């Protein structure tokens, strides 16, 4: 037998769990204001998560997918992207979305059961949340294809979870993007679990980054709790994509510190000690330690940051809670550019019955 191809998968980490540099620091990591900006957003995400879970528990929000534990990945990716790049999210990457201009209120309106949450006043071209697992992947390839057709220096970024990598759509999209050299970066957020299924039961692959090899494109692992590492790896991948080098797969190694969603109870299936150990690697504290080591952070600033976040969150919750229910017309008005005549009657009926029902049939 003769060797015909060889591949290596590498792991990047810039900031260790102790908040000390463990690799070569990228330039932005020496800019304290920039690091602070990321830390502030990570903190906002953490606090928002707690509030959203609380709203759900008290009957004021629908099922919600928390992001606790993923903040470094989400913010690192957001910070690496340009504003005119396009994000194709799954459902819990608030850090990236907030960075790009999605509002806390939009997030709440969405999980409050209202499509208007996806109207995104900020990043107008970003895709909305995507519930059918992995289906965002071919879409991201298409977004990238649009940039290629129009010869624009823009990139698509698609998220997918460890569980999502089991769906064919993940691979189909990687493969097509590779074959057509599309400007897209696929971020695999390996948070250890897909609801109750651990990664080891999801695939025999020892890394998820190596799935890129199937498509003939580069795959790289990064410590997903290291916001500096994530941003740095993403910047390289985006640069490569933007300059015509084609797609990259970035596997961010992190951990879902919460239940899958508020409808889930992870204690049923997840060992308590695994969760405990994961908390020791969580992303916020190490970023704070690093900021402190730059002489740029202290207890007072932390306190004031938390107050800022709380205020922002409160105001978003207020805006959410005062958003009146959408009218049934909306179900029809956004179905087509122009409602087919045949549906006018249904639109009228829906409006009529809505007022009779008062919204509940049961």
């Amino acid at each position, binding site marked *: 037998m003769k060797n015909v191809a060889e591949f290596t998968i590498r792991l990047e980490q810039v900031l260790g769990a102790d908040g000390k540099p463990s690799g070569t620091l990228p330039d932005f990591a020496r800019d304290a204001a920039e690091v602070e900006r990321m830390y502030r957003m990570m903190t906002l995400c953490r606090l928002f998560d707690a509030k959203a879970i609380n709203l759900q528990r008290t009957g004021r929000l*629908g099922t919600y997918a928390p992001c606790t534990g993923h903040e470094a990945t989400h913010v690192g990716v957001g910070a690496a992207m340009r504003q005119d790049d396009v994000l194709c999210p799954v*459902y819990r990457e608030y850090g990236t979305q907030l960075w790009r201009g999605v509002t806390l209120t939009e997030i709440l309106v969405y999980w409050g059961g*209202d499509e208007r949450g996806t109207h995104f006043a900020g990043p107008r071209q970003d895709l909305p949340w995507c*519930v059918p697992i992995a289906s965002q992947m071919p879409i991201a390839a298409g977004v990238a294809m649009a940039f290629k057709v129009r010869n624009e220096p823009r990139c698509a970024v698609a998220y997918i979870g460890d569980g999502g990598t089991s769906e064919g759509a993940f691979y189909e999209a990687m493969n097509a993007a590779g074959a057509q050299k599309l400007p897209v970066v696929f971020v695999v957020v390996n948070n250890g679990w897909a609801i109750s*299924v651990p990664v080891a039961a999801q695939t025999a692959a020892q890394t998820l980054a190596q799935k890129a090899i199937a498509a003939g494109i580069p795959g790289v692992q990064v410590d997903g709790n290291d916001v500096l590492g994530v941003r740095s790896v993403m910047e390289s991948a985006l640069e490569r994509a933007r300059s015509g080098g084609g797609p990259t797969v970035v596997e961010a190694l992190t951990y879902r510190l919460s239940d899958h969603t508020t409808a889930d109870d992870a204690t049923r299936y997840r060992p308590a000690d695994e969760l405990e150990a994961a908390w020791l690697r969580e992303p916020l504290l190490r970023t704070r330690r690093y900021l402190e080591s730059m002489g740029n952070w202290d207890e007072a600033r932390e306190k004031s940051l938390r107050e800022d976040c709380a205020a922002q969150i409160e105001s978003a919750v207020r805006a959410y809670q005062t958003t009146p229910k959408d009218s049934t017309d909306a179900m029809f008005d956004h179905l087509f550019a122009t409602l087919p005549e045949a549906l006018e009657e249904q639109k009228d009926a829906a409006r009529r*019955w*809505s007022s009779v029902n008062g919204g509940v*049939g049961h």
Partner: protein
Amino acid sequence: MAKVTLVEAVNMALARALEQDQDVVLLGEDIGRNGGVFRATVGLQERFGPLRVQDSTLAEGVIAGMAVGMASQGLKPVAEIQFMGFIYPALDQIANHMARMRNRTRGRLTMPIVVRMPHGGGIHAPEHHSESLETLLCHHAGLRVICPSSPARAYGLLLAAIRDPDPVMFLEPTRLYRMSKQEVLDDGLALPLDRAFRLREGEDVTVVTWGAMTHDVLRAAEQLSLEKIGCDVIDLASLSPIDHDTVLDSVARTGRLVIVHEAARHCGVGAEVAATVAERGLHDLLAPIRRITGYDTVMPYFKLEHDYIPSVARIVDGVREAVRT
């Protein structure tokens, strides 16, 4: 005799099937350790082991395709699709193989498969978790499509589905999963797979429905009885094939037909019921047929879902109109 919810009845039937027949194998996402996101399979992996109750990789195409492969070698897979909205990646296998294998091989390879899936809305779930897509399955010859409306019918029909030598799509209405309890005897007795159930007798109008809507129809019928309007309520239960004779018999008596379903109206299963009556029972009809259905819009996210799902008031009104004309 235990009082159980619909999801508990499903669990009972699955346990009994696993116990009685070594060839029965369950597979699906999160059905093992976690017992299913609705707890339909709770305790089963513990009891029957990880090869009989398998946590699948997150790929509906694999779940369905693996069921096809297992069935081709004589096993009796019972697959779970986590929500009906996620049936799409499984449709290639269901339509092109499961529904056709017996026919394509002229009886050589058969497909004794059940595909279970939560059906419909009304539980304040996320987007894509509340779909009613029975039409997509019903249009494929070679599949049976069943939708139970009570714990006892869920138990008896699921056992029948598992024992049936052909593929059965088993739609479990999410809003009935825990709605109410009913005494269900775990006697291993199956119900017939292609018979409709007459749930209430009445002489004025036939109301055909299935799944979760059955309960709203019964409530509407109760209200209408106060106005002396008698509803003959038929739960189709089997959406393919349809027990048209039971519907036609009823319409022959009442002369009026109202069909109620949650799915979108355009090409919904209600159209098939209406079309068949317009073919075979036209002369019995004293008034136009009425369909009271979900609208021809996307199933809305939960804030508007109860504006989409036909309400008791809408059903009452529709039936009243049918009787008045």
